[in-house]
């Protein structure tokens, strides 16, 4: 008898619910997400990236809309003097736009939580510089992407340098 009870208990423990069924996330409105419950563990497909920027890649590097990315030294978030001309050009374009998004990026070294903060500090340095150049603060949205969006995957210093950058995107 004890053995039967144990078998039942261990079966319950090992997550019952073997039927597959699809449900809508209960607390998400206007969502196209689908969650598949399978063996007690749900799978969620959140669809493709929903960022609302102009993704034409008409600009240079990782930026779009004719804007130019700004690059940083290893582990740093201060803007080097040779990047100022790019920021000046970008600020002239941005002044005529409603909203822009700054995406901070990092190379693959270090843990990702620290890299997300580092990418954000890079974006914040650009934002502060744009404000100093007369861009309205309310036009600027920042997000850090850590090491999730590399432009280059080679194991060279030149490649790593391409990934330490802030990209500019015009938000529609």
């Amino acid at each position, binding site marked *: 008898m004890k*053995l039967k009870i*144990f*078998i039942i208990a*261990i*079966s319950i*423990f*090992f*997550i019952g*619910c*073997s039927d597959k069924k699809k*449900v809508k*996330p*209960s*607390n*998400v409105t206007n969502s196209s997400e689908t*969650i598949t*419950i*399978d*063996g*007690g*563990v*749900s*799978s*969620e497909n*959140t*669809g*493709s*990236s*929903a*960022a*609302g920027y102009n993704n034409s890649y008409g600009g240079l590097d990782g930026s779009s809309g004719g804007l130019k990315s700004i690059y940083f030294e*290893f*582990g740093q978030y201060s803007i080097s003097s040779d990047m100022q001309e790019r920021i000046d050009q970008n600020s002239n374009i941005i002044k005529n736009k409603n909203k822009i*998004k700054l995406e901070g990026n990092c190379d693959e*070294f*270090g*843990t*990702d*939580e*620290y890299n*997300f*903060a*580092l990418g*954000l*500090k890079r*974006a*914040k340095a650009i934002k502060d510089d744009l404000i100093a150049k007369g861009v309205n603060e309310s036009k600027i*949205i*920042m*997000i*850090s*992407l*850590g*090491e*999730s*969006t*590399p432009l280059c995957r080679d*194991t060279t*210093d030149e490649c790593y340098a391409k990934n330490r950058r802030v990209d500019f995107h015009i*938000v529609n």
Partner: protein
Amino acid sequence: MRFLVIFIFSFYLFADVDATIRIEKDVESRSRVAIIDDSVGVSPNINSKFFDILLADLKISGHFLADKTHYMAKGSDFGNKDYIIKYRFSIEDSASLNIQLIEVSSNKQIMSKNYNIPSFSKYPFLAHQAVSDIYQFLKYPSISWINRYIVFSRYTSKKQSEIILSDYTMNYRKVIISGGLNLFPKWADKEQRNLYYTSYNSLIPTLYKLNIYNGSKSKIVSSEGMLVCSDVKGSKILVTMAPNGQPDIYEIDTQSGVKNRLTSFSGIDVKGRYVDDGDSMIFVSNPLGSANIYKKSLYGSSISQLVYHGKNNNSCDAYGNKIVYSSRETKSGYSQNRFNIYLASSNGYNTKPLTSTGSNQLPTFSSDGSVVLYVKSRANSSSIGYINLKDLKTVQFPISGRKIQSLDW
């Protein structure tokens, strides 16, 4: 001669481990065990995997000296063993296991249990549950942590990632969130029913809490810039977020919604972990230019530096009054760096290296604090390792696919 054979055997068992692992001198005190396979009708490939998982489970602590020979039901002399584990593994719609523990000296079956799991792919958990039950039966220290899920995220392509559930050996894996950029999974409860994760799929990063059993999902908080849940204490969580573009650590009461900003340094503050009695935290900051480990009271302003070595210490975890952290010990900022993991008390004393070779990162305590998980990276591969803090035994399992972005267990 016998000692030499055992020495070689032990060295082989723990080959490819970190150099700090001692060659055990107490092998004679461990219980010698052989595993007999009594399974019928299971494909050799799966059965071989199942045997390997049982063997790994037995090797995870220093209590068993497990014979790695895959014995079949008949024809061997086990007179030099203390125990025999006899198992019958079967697969139909579900996976089932009968396991028997036989004491060789008395030739008596001293334990027998049956297990069943509805989802065949979860069969590694049958082995884990059975071996942890054997530990409990023999009154050895608990290894129940081997029954827990590991949840981790990894990138799949640009701005794309997936969040995966696995067992500790990585033999069971299931993608639970895919599509878009969803990162930093963190268990929300000890029972591993709910997890927090950050969605980077809209203009503003958003932290969600997801019930993995019924799919219900609730929004916790949004923040411009970045958002990471670093630690959980009941209904309170430590998060790194940046409502004004400045990454700082906040404590959020998820029931009341009250936010308490804990750091205000103008640089980087991330990876807050509750420590001691939960009234303090350790975290990673860069006031001296590179990442290092610091500690502060949740309710005071004084901050103390805990680590005084290494070039860059950007990952840490805490359990009670113990901390673990990874430390870069080479000068180069680039690849081929050596990262080692250290154990210390929460006041920074009694520092002890846990690894000594290669790149070892993301140290994380088990739910009972007895084991430290870490990720070891090599040129073209990586593995997940476990260090038993009592006897410094280490086991490693290869991780296929891209490197782990973040994990919790």
